[in-house]
């Protein structure tokens, strides 16, 4: 724990003012958690008032940032996210080509009406918008404030500001729709100061990217004390724990909330919410949803509890005692599917059939972000795969584990596993080799961001699971959690955990480290395709009357042996660039099976057997563990193809088509 008194700069007057400041920020107090989970180098205290008619949130904020680096830092950088929706010249707009809000007449913006430092000095003249990523002079999503005195190592920089946030019509999971509000990315927020050696930083500096079309967040774990004033009839959900609520007597009410050690604070307000409460172990769950979706409530709650259980068991504990999630009404559906650690949004609709598990999938996915970028707070701007891909991997596992191996559609007639959805997105994409996973989120070419950062990453993680085993994978993630929870891991740190845990379990079975795997998948663009090229079963023959004429051999007669020995060969091929160890299962016509291991390196590989039985079929990767393989069809071959399943389908199709044509013929 870092005590705020350690950072008091200036003389006695300054110290007194700052002590007042600290007491108001209350960052050191343990209200929710028994002990701080993070360094808490940033803290925020905000009084927010929602004006529903103007769609504006007026805020008074007191916040601090502790210079925990060894550097002398001359400035602070703040995210001003809502300005991404302020005009059609912002970087966000240029990247998406959309309107500033979902409606062109509804832009969003944030402005600072005043900003002072801890000593009461006006900092407005020292504040300037910058565009560190693309130099776009019209982008106002990053604000740089030059400090009156540079912050020395250990100093605390205080800011006191009044701001106004105009919400756009719902876009990118923030904004309003009629009387529905989802208030996210709404306050001035510190970037992350990275000293040399932290992640990839070679020298100290602020890591504070502009708002891009495909980027999300990177923040310090913070304490948030947020008081929210809304009309009295509004139902409010927040990322914090509600400590109190008072009626202001003027038709409004104020909620006193606090959140500890989370990376972002968001809230929602709508008079129409129905509120459902539940509990899982130590976690009080609050679910806000339109009342007509009551049939969906249990589905969402069950999915959430599955995710809590699975991630707690296989990754690490969920530390907070509170969790709120929201199913926005249809008019605010643009706010669905987003994560703010202890508050997340899901999606659903009235009357969705139970076999269609999309609502559960979104709940599991968005909750999973509490771990992957909530607790393990990677830089989503720069390494989106590290939370989206990793989180998608866990979402796939959770959904397929709890929903009978068919975590997307589980119907007697058709089953789609959640893992298959990720694989399909990757395999069928024409741009699957357009880039590797080392790009910044906004650098992914040709709309490949989702496919590469979510699905390709999930696919290679599943493939790695197939190689090292599920329990080893769990152990890797448990170690990742132990080492990096409430810190800022990079992709390299993630790989290092694998390289530490896997050799500790397996020795050199997979080499000294797993860099060979990550080089090909995470940092590579190749594809993986192993195939069975052929099966031959040849009877061994004895030859009689062999003669030699002019150095050539002539066989005059071939006799089959009485014991009918066969030489059977399986011909395998590697068509892709990626080299992975694979298993081959060979079945003979006497019912025996042989499991072979192939390091997968050669372009062509034969397995030959001599015996009384012939090869009946062969399967590469019989359990479909190599999810990266872009063609499952050529992974197996049989001497007696079974086309009955196809026949069955077309028998159905033909009859249904005849019935359909007759039915629509009036």
């Amino acid at each position: 724990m870092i005590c705020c008194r350690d950072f008091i700069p200036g003389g006695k007057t300054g110290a007194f003012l700052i002590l007042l400041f600290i007491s108001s920020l209350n960052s050191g107090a343990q209200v929710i958690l028994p002990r701080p989970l993070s360094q808490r180098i940033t803290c925020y205290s905000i009084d927010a008032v929602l004006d529903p008619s103007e769609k504006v949130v007026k805020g008074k904020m007191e916040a601090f940032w502790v210079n925990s680096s060894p550097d002398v830092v001359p400035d602070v950088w703040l995210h001003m996210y809502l300005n991404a929706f302020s005009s059609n010249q912002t970087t966000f707009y240029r990247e998406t080509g959309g309107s500033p809000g979902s409606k062109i007449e509804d832009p969003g913006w944030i402005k600072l009406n005043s900003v002072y430092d801890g000593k009461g000095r006006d900092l407005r003249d020292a504040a300037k918008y910058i565009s560190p990523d693309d130099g776009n002079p019209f982008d106002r999503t990053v604000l740089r404030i030059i400090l009156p005195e540079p912050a020395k190592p250990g100093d605390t920089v205080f800011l006191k500001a009044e701001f106004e946030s105009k919400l756009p019509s719902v876009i990118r999971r923030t904004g309003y729709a009629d009387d529905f509000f989802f208030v996210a990315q709404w306050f001035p927020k510190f970037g992350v100061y990275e000293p040399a050696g932290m992640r990839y930083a070679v020298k100290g500096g602020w890591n504070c990217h502009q708002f891009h079309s495909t980027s999300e967040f990177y923040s310090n774990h913070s304490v948030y004390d947020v008081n929210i004033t809304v009309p009295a009839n509004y139902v409010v959900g927040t990322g914090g724990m509600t400590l109190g609520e008072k009626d202001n007597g003027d038709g409004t009410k104020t909620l006193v909330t606090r959140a500890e050690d989370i990376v972002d604070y968001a809230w929602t307000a709508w008079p129409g919410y129905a509120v459902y409460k539940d509990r899982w172990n130590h976690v009080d769950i609050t679910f806000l949803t339109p009342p007509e979706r009551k049939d969906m409530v249990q589905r969402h709650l069950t999915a959430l509890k599955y995710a809590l259980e699975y991630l707690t068991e296989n990754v690490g504990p969920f530390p907070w005692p509170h969790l709120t999630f929201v199913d926005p009404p249809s008019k605010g559906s643009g706010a669905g599917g987003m994560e703010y650690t202890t508050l997340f949004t899901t999606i659903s609709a009235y009357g969705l059939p139970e076999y269609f598990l999309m609502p559960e999938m979104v709940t599991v996915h968005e909750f999973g972000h509490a771990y992957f970028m909530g607790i393990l707070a990677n830089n989503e701007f720069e390494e989106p795969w590290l939370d989206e891909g990793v989180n998608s991997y866990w979402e796939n596992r959770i959904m397929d584990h709890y929903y009978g191996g068919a975590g997307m559609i589980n119907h007697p007639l058709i089953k789609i596993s959640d893992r298959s959805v990720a694989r399909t997105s990757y395999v069928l994409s024409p741009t699957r080799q357009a880039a590797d996973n080392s790009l910044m989120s906004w650098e992914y070419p040709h709309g490949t961001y989702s496919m590469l950062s979510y699905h390709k990453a999930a696919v290679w993680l599943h493939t790695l699971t197939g190689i090292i085993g599920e329990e080893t994978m769990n152990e890797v993630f448990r170690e990742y959690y132990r080492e990096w929870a409430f810190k800022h891991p990079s992709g390299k740190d993630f790989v290092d955990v694998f390289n530490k845990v896997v050799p500790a379990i397996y020795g050199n079975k997979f080499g000294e480290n797993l860099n060979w795997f990550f080089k090909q998948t995470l940092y590579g663009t190749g594809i993986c395709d192993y195939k069975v090229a052929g099966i031959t079963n040849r009877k061994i023959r004895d030859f009689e009357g062999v003669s030699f004429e002019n150095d050539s051999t002539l066989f005059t007669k071939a006799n089959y042996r009485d014991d009918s020995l066969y030489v059977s060969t399986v011909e395998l091929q590697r068509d892709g660039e990626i080299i992975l160890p694979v298993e081959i299962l060979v079945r003979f016509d006497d019912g025996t099976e042989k499991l072979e291991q192939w390091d997968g390196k050669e372009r062509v590989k034969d397995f030959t057997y001599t015996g009384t039985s012939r090869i009946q079929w062969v399967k590469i990767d019989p359990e479909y563990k190599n999810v990266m393989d872009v063609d499952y069809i050529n992974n197996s071959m049989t001497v007696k193809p079974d086309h009955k399943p196809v026949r069955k389908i077309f028998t159905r199709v033909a009859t249904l088509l005849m019935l359909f044509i007759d039915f629509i013929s009036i």
Partner: protein
Amino acid sequence: MNMKILVNILSGFVRSVRVWKWIILIWFAFLLLVSLFTLPVKSGINMTLGSSMITEKIAAGYFFDVIANDGFSLKTILPQFFSGLFLVVTVGLLLNIFFTGGLFNVLREDGRRRKASDFFGAAGSNFWSFLVISIITFSILFILALIIIGIPAAIAVSKDSDLILRKTITISSIILLILIPLVITSADYARAWQVTSSEKNAFKAFGRGVKMMFRSFLTSYISVALILGIQVLFMLLAVRSLLYAEPSKGSTIMLMWLYGQLLAILKIFLRSWRYGVVTGLYESHF
């Protein structure tokens, strides 16, 4: 009234049984048509899958894992599948319009024995008129659906309540379901009149159909609505039984095929039954 309806329905049933040969002919024509589409697609897929054992995934219901492969070019197969499907449905509809002319003719009871020349002669001579009657009927049904379901649903969407939308669509659908037999009865009367008339005028026929439907409103509406109800129920049961049948052996797949074809014949019979009822009503009233 009840007795009259029952007699009409039974009379239609008997007429329909009497024309079984033509029902079999229609079924066979459809079997050929659909096979022209499904057999090549099936062969194409079998060729694509070759000697692969991925068919195990199909058998288990995991089609997605088969579609998502380099070796199975979904982008090539799907457009071919849907364009083929569109073509078969279109040709099927036209073929049905053609055969319907013949059916309405052979369902008549005027003491004459109907020959193949009667069936095909009526089918050919009434084709254009029946085509226009079908287009008019489809257009009316489409406009009714738009007015009764589309517009209220659009208004309900703006209310932003899933429940209001759901209720609106449910109520609108019930109203539409009540109105559908009116339109279809009119179309059936129109066609019953058209096969007996030497004047081939679809609009005039449809106008007469509407008039005749209102003249014997209750008897006509209830009779046709009942048979339409049976048709819908039959379709639901047939589709469900086909979808949930899980044959795994070659012989049981063949049984499923035979069962499916029996269903297809019965479905044509049910349609013919409705035509028979309306033809009977037309003959007794007009």
